[in-house]
């Protein structure tokens, strides 16, 4: 298929206009790609260059005086180290529980025998399109005692209707005969789920896991709304935002960290380093997960 496209485009009579189009086209994409990736390169070279030079705004295109001590020094910025623990733990716990719930709920909604199945399914789907609004949601969370509470990150995210629908659609595409033969052999619904459905649904579960993990990793809004009185529960993004907005806040955190202050002339370096720390994991994981990301968006398209 790909070769077909190639040969057919080679079959062109390469006129001047055609060549010009190609040159412009490739240039535009090259420039856009560069714009997408350059800021991260710039951030990165500033975190590994000599801190004096960075402080004097002298690092523009090439790193100088390379060292990695900034990354090590971050562990002394205790507020940030704390927010890393919050974010990493919620990413692991929240995502794995969400995947488990989506898998089970998605499987159960495929079972036509369920008492009033279509009613319950509709009840889940409606929540995707309608919500009461931020403030009633917040008041509800307050009433449930989930504000300033770590569980406020985990519990509301367990039932994700969109992911349940994705799993349901995927399971419905698995030949029903597999499940039927197991049922005839006397397997219960839960046995069928754990022995047959879970292994077969792995691709879709990986997809929703990847999206869920990215969502948790980047979470800012729920931290802003729910944890306003508990700085120790801020997520990484929330903490970074606080630092970006007020250097004084960061300077205090660095002083309480002790040794850091002398090593760093300004808060700029540490801001950049913190930014890189939140970016690098995604950059590292992305190439391996890209397949799942792309599958995910296609599934969303055919959902219907």
């Amino acid at each position, binding site marked *: 298929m790909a070769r077909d496209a190639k040969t057919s485009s080679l079959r062109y009579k390469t006129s001047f206009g055609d060549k010009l189009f190609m040159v412009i086209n490739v240039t535009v994409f090259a420039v856009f790609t560069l714009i997408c990736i350059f800021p991260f390169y710039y951030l990165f070279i500033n975190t590994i260059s000599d801190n004096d030079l960075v402080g004097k705004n002298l690092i523009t295109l090439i790193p100088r005086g390379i060292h990695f001590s900034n990354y090590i020094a971050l562990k002394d910025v205790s507020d940030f180290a704390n927010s890393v623990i919050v974010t990493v733990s919620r990413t692991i716990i929240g995502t794995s529980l969400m995947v488990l719930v989506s898998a089970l709920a998605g499987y159960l909604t495929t079972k036509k025998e*369920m008492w009033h199945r279509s009613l319950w399914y509709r009840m889940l789907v409606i929540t995707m399109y309608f919500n009461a609004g931020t403030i009633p949601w917040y*008041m509800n969370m307050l009433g449930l005692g989930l504000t300033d509470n770590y569980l406020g990150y985990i519990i509301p995210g367990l039932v994700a209707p969109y992911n349940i629908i994705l799993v349901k659609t995927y399971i419905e595409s698995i030949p029903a005969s597999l499940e039927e033969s197991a049922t005839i052999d006397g397997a219960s619904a*839960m046995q069928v789920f754990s022995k047959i459905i879970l292994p077969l649904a792995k691709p879709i579960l990986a997809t929703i896991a990847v999206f869920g993990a*990215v969502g948790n990793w980047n979470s800012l809004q729920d931290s802003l709304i729910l944890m306003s009185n508990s700085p120790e529960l801020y997520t990484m993004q929330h903490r970074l935002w606080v630092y970006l907005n007020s250097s004084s806040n960061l300077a205090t955190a660095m002083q309480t960290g002790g040794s850091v202050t002398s090593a760093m002339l300004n808060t700029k370096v540490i801001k950049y380093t913190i930014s890189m720390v*939140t970016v690098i994991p995604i950059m590292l994981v992305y190439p391996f997960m890209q397949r799942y990301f792309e599958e995910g968006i296609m599934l969303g398209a055919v959902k219907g």
Partner: protein
Amino acid sequence: MTSLVKAREETRRGNTLYIIHRVTILLAVVCVFYPGFNPGRITTAINRNVSLFTASISYNSLVSELERALMRGWVQSSTFVLVMIASIILVVGIALCAVGGCMSVGNNRMRRSGLWFPLAGSVAMTAGLTGLYLAYGHIVQANNKRVPAHFPGGFWLFAVFTAVILISTIVLIIQDRREKKELEDKMKMKESYNLFLLMLPFLALSFVFSYLPLWGWRYAFFDYKAGGELTMDNFVGLYWFTYLFENPATRADFFRVLKNTLGMSALGIATSWLPMAFAILLTQIPNMRFRRIVQNFTTVPNFLGWTIIYAVALAIFATDGFINNFLNNILGISANTNYLMSNSHMWIKMLLWGLWKGLGWNAIIYISSITGIDPTLYEAAEVDGANRFQKMWNVTVPSLMPTFFVLLLMSIANILSNGMEQYLVFSNSMNASSLEVLDLYVYNLGIGNGQIPMSTAIGMFKSVISVTLLFAANTASKKLRGESII
């Protein structure tokens, strides 16, 4: 023999006692999460938003408004430890009842075994309520004006639940013994009920986090101050809705915010063809490796949060950022402008940040569709003498139109919801007024200023319009394409 089984089956079905039993248990479970019915609110000094469930899992929430009272020794902390323990016992008791309630839809053997759970559960509930009553006694004894004793209405409610469950369970046990039903070899349940019970926890979660907030809409009709109470005294009817439009200051604010929201959404919709153009032009490039590289790098920003995008913006455009460094160090032009501290063209700037973040990613769906187009269409066009652009316009674009159309309708339905994170992180003293969109306004007003009723009213307005738009978009889609989008 079969007729006997049938008759028994019918007596079971007709047994209203089971229905009362199950419904009571269900109500008790729901009330556990509802702060207004907390039987453990033995003094008005306990935060009125603490439900029985909250009290049983978080001591900090329970005593959140009692720090001073405990420090000064007006009341003993042991009282509240007792409240928490009693709450835990009560919740565990209700959980046991819930297990029994679930088992009561099974076969005879399962129902019989299941009856022991609500028996144990209602005994535990009695113990829990007794504990709460003792704690209430402590408060009465302490007799401090600042920690006034309050006999919670929820106590009676749970006492009634306990009584009903206990009595119905005992009657059901006696009835079960008397009837001498045949017991099956194994505990079993009808598959339809079994599946429903497995689903029930997820439905409950969905109810609590997606439907229960609707009950919060009532705040829009009260003069509520954060931490206050909703009583008939501060019921104000539609006051906030008329205030929003009659007070000149709020009206001006609201229309400014609405203008920002609609303006930026309109820009988004006006450029919604860009991902399609990106995909079509990219697939014109025959070099697969180049395409792969472009696709990989341009999709990365989509997976970064808005805080990171803002960090990038600072690194590039701030006074000590890349642009100024580049001008100073490489071109030798003296410059120290902070490009982010400006209020000019904010809508366009936000659009560009949005495109930088999402363009590559949003193109993927079109790229996949393009690879799925039947190649014979192109061959036929070529035979007819179509050039590159004619083929793009007459073959590729029409086959992408259905996807484009769905996405366009969805973005029209979401015209009021542009999210708050992007605008929040980019806000500063200079540009806040032209960045504030509806979602951000509601957040600033409600969470920032504590104006719960007003922000709830605005949120209601937004929710209702959004749903109307969604249905309109769906109807349009059905009319035009014969296919619904939701």
